[in-house]
């Protein structure tokens, strides 16, 4: 791996011409290392279990089944209080909830694992050089792969219990993209801060719990439509737009809430910029402090 020029005292010397080739090799190496770390995360998660990778499918299936039982027989809440599907089919509340939940989980897992990614890899930081942002990035990518499995389960459940989705599904990649960007920004920022302030690791769990309730997952925006202040507050949450839009396009066969989604994208880019700057500024100290 080539090392970029660092330090300040002597003026930087001219950049050697062979640099470009090296940078490319370095980039490829970084990509492969990221892939290997993601692979490790996923393998380790289910290693030693009987079902192995099947747990990635079984787990969300069990979750949606459990919700169905709870909403059907305990809470007696049957249908979702949101936009009606154009085809008039009922949306079981369990499916409605599951739909918002998996997108929230993508964010929540990325943020929580990403926050610990640098502190948890001290043994690597002290022994090898690699671009440090690989650590939070691989947390987000691992969460994305898990999300992929959950999305497959969700789509199957929707087709069986609700009805076929329509072309609005094409909105899924951009919506997930916004969440991934936001997650990566948060992971970059918090993983760097956690190195200096371990408390963050505890706070993030609490904040994510709060965030869960401050995002319309178990309820819809229509549900709080009468409370102007609450509605405004909810719309400040950058996860509101993606969750509402995701549910619209996957489950309800409606278009996304473009306004909220654009706002989320804006927040994501700001967080990414701040997180990237903080990470770049502090990464030089990681190996010494972690």
């Amino acid at each position, binding site marked *: 791996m080539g*090392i970029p020029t660092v*330090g300040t005292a*002597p003026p930087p010397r001219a950049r050697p011409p062979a640099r470009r080739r090296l940078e490319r090799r370095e980039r490829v190496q970084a990509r492969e290392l990221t892939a*290997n770390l993601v692979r490790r995360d996923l393998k380790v998660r289910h290693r030693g279990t009987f079902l192995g990778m099947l747990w990635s499918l079984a787990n969300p299936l069990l979750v949606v089944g459990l919700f169905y039982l709870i909403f059907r027989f305990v809470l007696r809440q049957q249908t979702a209080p949101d936009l009606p599907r154009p085809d008039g089919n009922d949306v079981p509340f369990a499916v409605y909830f599951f739909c918002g939940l998996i997108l929230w989980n993508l964010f929540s897992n990325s943020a929580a694992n990403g926050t610990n990614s640098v502190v948890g890899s001290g043994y690597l930081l002290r022994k*090898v050089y690699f671009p440090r942002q690989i650590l939070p990035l691989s947390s987000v990518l691992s969460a994305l792969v898990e999300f992929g499995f959950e999305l497959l389960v969700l789509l199957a459940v929707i087709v069986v219990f609700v009805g076929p989705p329509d072309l609005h599904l094409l909105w899924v990649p951009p919506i997930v993209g916004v969440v991934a960007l936001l997650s990566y920004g948060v992971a970059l920022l918090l993983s760097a801060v956690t190195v200096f302030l371990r408390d963050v690791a505890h706070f993030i769990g609490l904040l994510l719990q709060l965030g869960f309730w401050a995002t319309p997952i178990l309820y819809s925006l229509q549900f709080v439509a009468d409370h102007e202040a609450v509605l405004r507050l909810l719309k400040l949450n950058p996860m509101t737009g993606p969750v509402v839009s995701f549910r619209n396009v996957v489950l309800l066969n409606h278009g996304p809430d473009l306004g909220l989604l654009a706002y989320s994208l804006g927040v994501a880019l700001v967080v990414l910029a701040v997180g990237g700057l903080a990470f770049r500024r502090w990464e030089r100290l990681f190996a010494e402090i972690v």
Partner: protein
Amino acid sequence: MAGDLAIAVGGLWKSYRKYEQRSHTLKERVLRRAHRYEEFWALREVDLEVPAGTALGIIGANGSGKSTLLKTMAGILTPDRGSVEVEGAMSSLLELGTGFHPELTGRENVYLGGSLLGMRRHEVAARYDEIVDFAGIEPFMDVAVKNYSSGMYARLAFALAVSVDPEILVVDEVLSVGDEAFQMRCFERIAQLRTGGRTIVLVSHSLDTIRSLCTSAVWLDGGTVRERGRAHDVVAAYLGEVHATASHDIDQSPDRRGNRWGSGEVEITDVAFVDGEGAAVGAFRTGEPMTVRLHYRATEARDDVVCGVAVHRADTLVHLFGENTRGAGVPLRLAGEGTIEVLIPSLPFLKGAYVVTVALHDATMARVFDWHERRYSFLVFENPDLPTQVGSVHVPLTWRVSASTMAV
């Protein structure tokens, strides 16, 4: 950076903060606002240049900054001041099995660990059989490494480590772990990398290792470069200091420093130990061919020169043998520059470190042109093809057992 430099370190300063008690939590931050710490400069104003294709050894006492310098070169630590420039793909080998995950299988760990050593996936794949072969644990490659014995784990980690083939390799002490076979293999690998034109930076506490494997060396003392130059000279200077300060040391003979003297009309400019394939290496196996190659420069043509070579054990300095051209009846006429070779078809020494004296003097020894007292060293490893013997020299022998007629 000039085209032929692999690493250039300029005006490098690196400090650590020694906190009395590092405060990691918010409470501690708030309660004790001021961090009480001492700044400790591990490196001060270090300048270094490592030409491509050479091997640099870093020596020094504990805490002299060796590992800090290595980690800074590897990009793991960032300098406070100064610059580190690296030209070429670099791998750092600071411990064995970095990044191995206990839940993953041997195979999976080879790929993961390989990518941390800077190897591409296809590079690992190309060397996979070789790695498994060397580790000798083929039936266990699909078993999680948490179920390995510590020996198996070490073998796998080691096999992976010696399979790296970067343009620049930075190694810290890992050579000193592992058994005989591992060490020999490691020396062979490093010698191989060197002949392949790779650049190597090596930190070791074993001065014999540094002398045997490195072209040049630096001696770090309190974070600054105390001495730099040819590996043999730097090690000699370091040993001189160590022996001067350690008054209780048994061996205080001044010539342990590796002295050199002589009038200089004919000079020894370089000495190399060459193996059977013609490569200059620092380590051999018992029974292998070894050639001691002297390079000389004569400022005036002379025909009264005698060249002598002697070998001592490095630990006890016991004189094992010596021979010169006069005793061998080889006339020498030296003019200009050239080489003198001593060909040993089968090295008789058993495993250990050996130091070598080479000298050019006249027939009566009244006049010494250039005498290098124990300035060179090589290592010998056990040869698995020979019967095990102990001591200093291998004696080919056979046993004969016959029954006594007195026996019942």
